[in-house]
């Protein structure tokens, strides 16, 4: 992407000699305070981590191709599931969303840059160090973290391998990174909106990220506190989670899920914003029920704080607590349902075309809703006792994270890539990528529902013979899904590094509305130095 932007700048430079351009070479990326550069860094980092963590997923699926040992021993299998989960959540989805926020929020609200540009640089550059530290544990002589991404005590405290301390500090660093990024986004949205860009004229993507940023500010410190308690238990003779010293391992689950549940909304809400931008464009209609969409987003975030114990139904929770958390959890389906119905209403009688971003958005709409339904099944206390810790849970959260969060990110990249680079992506390859992804994704995760219902537990490297057929389907699907992402990589690289003349119009899409589409494609290095005035809501 770097050359394309540098190229675009040189182009602009001919006309605006008063601008300071980016530095040349590596220093540009190290010292940059430009929101577009930092957005690119976040997205590039996320893409690299996506392939690293995806490779881990394929190792897991290879091991599960047949009962017995196929490739790796059980200890390494545990390390792979742990790393895959941690990297996908903290290293792929969250940085990708932060990258989209950096690129788009200033352009959408008519601001020249983020409010705190140097902080912005720092919040990105914490990430590569955090993940280098986390992944270096796989090369150490002892085992890497092997307790699952939820790192329940005492697995991670009393029985945690030595590398757990690296894990703790890397969580601290990525937490700090997320907090700083969220802080920057809140200040930008509060203080830097162009005149006339009132709260209720803000694009849905900006609204979604504002709510997400508040969630991040509220719960990332709780995660930091949680891992700090772990550190103290491990080394400073406290016993927050150790029953021998008067602590309680169950407390860990409460603290973790108090962070963990809002975290899942952190992963999906920006994606909701992306979908709310893409569907109106390709349906060539205004977003249906903008106000309801805003309130629904806020409501999801608020309710998200009071449902955490639905992750802990079988821990011996009192019946009253189980009932309350069941109903509260099912309540989340109401605002989420409002959003899904509003997207459907936007599509209704629209002049729909099926370009790649729209395909991914529609794929999201169908499969995320399926994932939501299996979530409702899990929320039911009586049935949860059966589904708990089975492959049904794995199927559920992959439907909402892969065909949910990840599909929205891919849709966003296809949608805004021509704006960022000035080059239309290859539509044919995009379509192939979509269909292979959808087929691969469903082939991987749909059979997992049945495996779970039949009683296959999650986080196991081996399984009884009767689960073999479905596991083999899962593995084949995983390889189709994994390798089809190479098409995505190729499409991105081609758009970024092609030597051809930029061929995207400023609007790029026929039905696209919003401040970012008033800028030329590719976007100049500096934008909105003259603050625009907004007179009406961009649909």
């Amino acid at each position, binding site marked *: 992407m770097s050359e394309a932007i540098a190229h675009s700048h040189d182009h602009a430079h001919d006309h605006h000699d008063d601008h300071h351009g980016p530095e040349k070479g590596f220093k540009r990326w190290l010292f940059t305070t430009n929101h577009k550069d930092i957005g690119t860094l976040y997205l590039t980092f996320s893409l690299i981590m996506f392939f690293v963590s995806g490779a881990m997923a394929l190792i897991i699926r290879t091991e599960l191709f047949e009962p017995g040992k196929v490739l790796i021993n059980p200890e390494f299998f545990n390390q792979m599931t742990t790393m895959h989960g941690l990297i996908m959540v903290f290293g792929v989805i969250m940085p990708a969303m932060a990258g989209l926020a950096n690129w788009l929020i200033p352009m959408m609200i008519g601001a020249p840059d983020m409010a705190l540009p140097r902080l912005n640089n720092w919040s990105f550059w914490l990430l590569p160090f955090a993940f280098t530290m986390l992944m270096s544990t796989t090369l150490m002589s002892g085992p890497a973290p092997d307790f699952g991404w939820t790192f329940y005590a005492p697995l991670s405290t009393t029985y945690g391998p030595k590398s757990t301390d690296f894990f703790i500090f890397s969580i601290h660093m990525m937490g700090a990174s997320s907090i700083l990024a969220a802080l920057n986004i809140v200040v930008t949205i509060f203080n830097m909106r162009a005149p006339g860009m009132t709260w209720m004229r803000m694009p849905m993507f900006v609204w979604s990220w504002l709510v997400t940023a508040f969630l991040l500010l509220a719960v990332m410190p709780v995660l930091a506190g949680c891992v700090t308690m772990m550190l103290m238990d491990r080394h400073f003779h406290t016993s927050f989670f150790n029953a021998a010293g*008067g602590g309680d391992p169950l407390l860990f689950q409460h603290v973790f899920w108090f962070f963990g549940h809002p975290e899942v909304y952190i992963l999906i809400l920006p994606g909701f914003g992306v979908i709310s931008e893409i569907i109106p464009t390709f349906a060539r209609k205004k977003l249906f029920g903008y106000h309801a969409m805003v309130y629904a987003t806020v409501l999801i975030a608020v309710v998200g704080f009071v449902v955490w114990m639905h992750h802990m139904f079988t821990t011996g929770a009192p019946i009253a607590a189980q009932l309350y958390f069941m109903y509260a959890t099912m309540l989340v389906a109401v605002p989420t349902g409002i959003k899904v119905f509003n997207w459907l209403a936007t599509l209704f009688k629209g002049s729909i075309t099926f370009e790649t971003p729209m395909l991914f958005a529609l794929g999201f709409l169908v499969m995320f809703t399926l994932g939501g339904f299996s979530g409702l099944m899990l929320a039911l206390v009586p049935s949860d006792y059966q589904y708990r810790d089975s492959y049904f849970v794995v199927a559920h959260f992959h439907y909402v994270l892969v065909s949910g969060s990840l599909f929205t990110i891919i849709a966003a990249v296809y949608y805004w890539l021509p704006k960022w680079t000035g080059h239309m992506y290859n539509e044919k390859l995009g379509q192939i990528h979509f269909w292979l992804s959808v087929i691969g994704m469903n082939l991987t995760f749909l059979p997992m529902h049945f495996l779970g219902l039949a009683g296959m537990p999650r986080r196991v490297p081996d399984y009884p013979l009767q689960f073999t057929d479905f596991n083999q389907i899962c593995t084949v699907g995983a390889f189709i899904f994994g390798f089809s992402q190479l098409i995505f990589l190729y499409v991105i690289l081609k758009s970024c590094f092609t030597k051809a003349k930029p061929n995207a119009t400023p609007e790029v899409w026929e039905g696209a509305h919003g401040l970012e589409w008033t800028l030329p494609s590719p976007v100049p290095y500096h934008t909105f130095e003259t*603050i625009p005035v907004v007179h009406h809501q961009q649909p």
Partner: protein
Amino acid sequence: MNPPRSHKRLTLILVCGVIFMFGFCYMLVPLYQLICQKEGINGKAANYAVTAAPGMKVDTSRVIKITFSTTLHGGLKFKFIPLQHSFNIHPGEGKLVYFYAENQSGKEMTVQAVPSITPSDAARFLKKTECFCFTQQYFFKNEKADMPVYFFIDPAVSKDIKEVTLSYTMFDAGGFIKKQEHFTKGRIDL
């Protein structure tokens, strides 16, 4: 263009919010203990001495089967068994039972027993006036002892409860020795 608004003030407010939430995480610890204790959930109520309410009557109309079980945590070299495995009692009836413990580790040990009661709906109705689990227990090398639990089941317990299991897990508390008076009342050194 409007005069640029101060980012400093908002940033400061947000940073205070972040610090508050970090503190809130630690506040969850006492909050959790408090709620569990008040609501009598998670066996926390079984960890504190209570006295029977003055007007409490023995409910002779029904019996509840109580079973004891013991677990040693993490390869602790102890012998730890209940002297009686199970019997029937009436709700409201006080009962004294002993648990036999023997230090087989070949060195002196400080241990802590942590109770757990199932079913969870019965947990807050099982009340103890004395228990070796209230404090850490110190054992000399090869020391043997019978340790007492004096308990009753509150007659307010639901009629659906027919059986209750009281289970103790014994932990090595060597790393967490508390400066508190050890509860040794009724302990019979053998």
